[in-house]
């Protein structure tokens, strides 16, 4: 693991050297001679902890602390003041607010090291805890809590979030007993921002569908995609955000499925009788960017036909050597399993990915959707 970075801001060369020598064995140390240089180096290095003197030329320790406090990327970095006995107590206390700790010079190196360690560990635990809570809460939103029971169909939906989670989502909107709209997609990008947009996006789509329904307008997948694409295109706020997805309407009674693939990985249709695997590519490119016309295709599902949707995280899953799973391997694997139930097929795909990646860290979500006509 990389060593923690400590920024020492101190104008007295003797104390600076003492700090440098005592910390260097355990941490990566950056030195600065005054507040101004300290702020500059803090921005450059993003330290895990800052130790700063109070009285310094150019910018003193208090002004440095204030400058750090208002900087979004730095405001949570633990901060220790080094103070002199000569500083008046009340002034000190008034001004100490905001610092995580302070040490009075002369200090024991052991005491310093202990406090540094404790502060770094504590801030790490806070950070990891809050991220874990957030990821857990948020991830559960992106797959339906309970899959709707659609008569004559078996469904499997799963998203396995990555170490550095992405913005994958699957949403199933029930219109009535016979009609469903299914959306499986991916926000290009990683982390909290991607999750936020995935959440906003599914909400937007539900709104779009319900608006169409309340005006009793029929909507086709291409109509929904065109509407969405136009919105992304015209909104400058979304110029950095790209969402790709596979959208289909299912008429359960007639066993008709109409889909539009908007820049997502191709849908894979397994035909139980012909033993063939067909790639579903009708649609177009990334919404808000693609300049062509979106098209759609209607499939009539026969008994046993299975639609498999996998995110790029499945195709790009890497093993420790960096080799990707790849589409060919996935397709070969599916071709040999045309008789599996939806659940077994979904679990088998997850197993394929797990076998391939072993313990290699995954940087992208793995989404698997399986929709099977009984």
């Amino acid at each position, binding site marked *: 693991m990389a060593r923690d970075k400590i920024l020492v801001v101190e104008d007295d060369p003797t104390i600076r050297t003492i700090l440098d020598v005592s910390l260097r064995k355990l941490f990566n140390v950056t030195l600065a001679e005054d507040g101004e240089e300290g702020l500059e180096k803090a921005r450059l290095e993003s330290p895990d902890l800052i130790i700063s003197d109070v009285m310094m030329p150019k910018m003193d320790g208090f002004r440095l602390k204030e400058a750090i406090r208002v900087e979004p990327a730095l405001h949570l970095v633990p901060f220790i003041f080094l103070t002199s006995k000569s500083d008046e107590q009340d002034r000190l206390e008034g001004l100490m607010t905001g610092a995580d700790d302070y040490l009075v010079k002369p200090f024991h190196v052991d005491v310093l090291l202990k406090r540094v360690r404790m502060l770094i560990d504590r801030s790490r635990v806070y950070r990891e805890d809050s991220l874990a809570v957030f990821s857990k809460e948020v991830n559960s939103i992106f797959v339906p809590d309970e899959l709707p029971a659609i008569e004559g169909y078996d469904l499997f939906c799963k998203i396995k979030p990555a170490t*550095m989670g*992405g913005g994958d989502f699957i949403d199933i909107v029930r219109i009535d007993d016979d009609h469903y709209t299914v959306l499986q997609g*991916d926000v*290009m*990008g*990683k982390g909290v921002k991607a999750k936020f947009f995935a959440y906003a996006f599914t909400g937007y789509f539900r709104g779009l569908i319900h608006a169409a329904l309340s005006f009793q307008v029929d909507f086709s997948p291409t109509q929904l995609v065109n509407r969405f694409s136009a919105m992304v295109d015209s909104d*400058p706020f979304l*110029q*950095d955000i*790209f969402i*790709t997805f596979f959208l289909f309407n299912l008429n359960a009674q007639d066993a008709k499925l109409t889909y539009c693939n908007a*820049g997502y*990985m*191709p849908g894979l249709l397994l035909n139980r009788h012909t033993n063939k695997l067909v790639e579903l590519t009708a649609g*177009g*490119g*990334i919404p*808000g*960017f*693609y*300049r*062509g016309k979106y098209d759609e295709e209607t499939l009539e599902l026969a008994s046993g036909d299975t639609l498999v949707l996998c995110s*790029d995280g499945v195709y*790009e899953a890497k093993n420790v050597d960096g080799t*990707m799973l790849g*589409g060919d391997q996935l397709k070969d694997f599916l071709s040999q399993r045309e008789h599996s139930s939806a659940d077994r097929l979904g679990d088998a795909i997850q197993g394929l990915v797990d076998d391939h990646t072993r313990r290699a860290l995954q*940087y*992208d979500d793995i989404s698997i959707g399986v929709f099977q006509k009984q």
Partner: protein
Amino acid sequence: MSVESQIQDQVHVLKFRGTLNAQNVEDVKPHIEQILGGDCRIALLDLENLEEIDSSGIGAIVSLLKRMRTQKRDVRIFRLRGTVKKLFELLRIDKSLEVYEDLGKALLV
């Protein structure tokens, strides 16, 4: 991953090498901002030596293309290879921008 940046006759060339993914995409952003803040007519992305790209990397490139488009400026891709080419085709990005195999043609007005 490395990016080589070069400006000549109003053409800003970015040469990519290695793997562009979620872990290093932030390193490319300063180059992209430089292009957007500059006044080159054409941004030329040389992807010949880009071995691998993921959706975050594609996001960065697509975002550049889109923002240049709103400024009525041009982005061209020079040479797509192997897995990168496959992914561009799969996501149909190649349909929304111009990909050139010949540097001379890529630089023509």
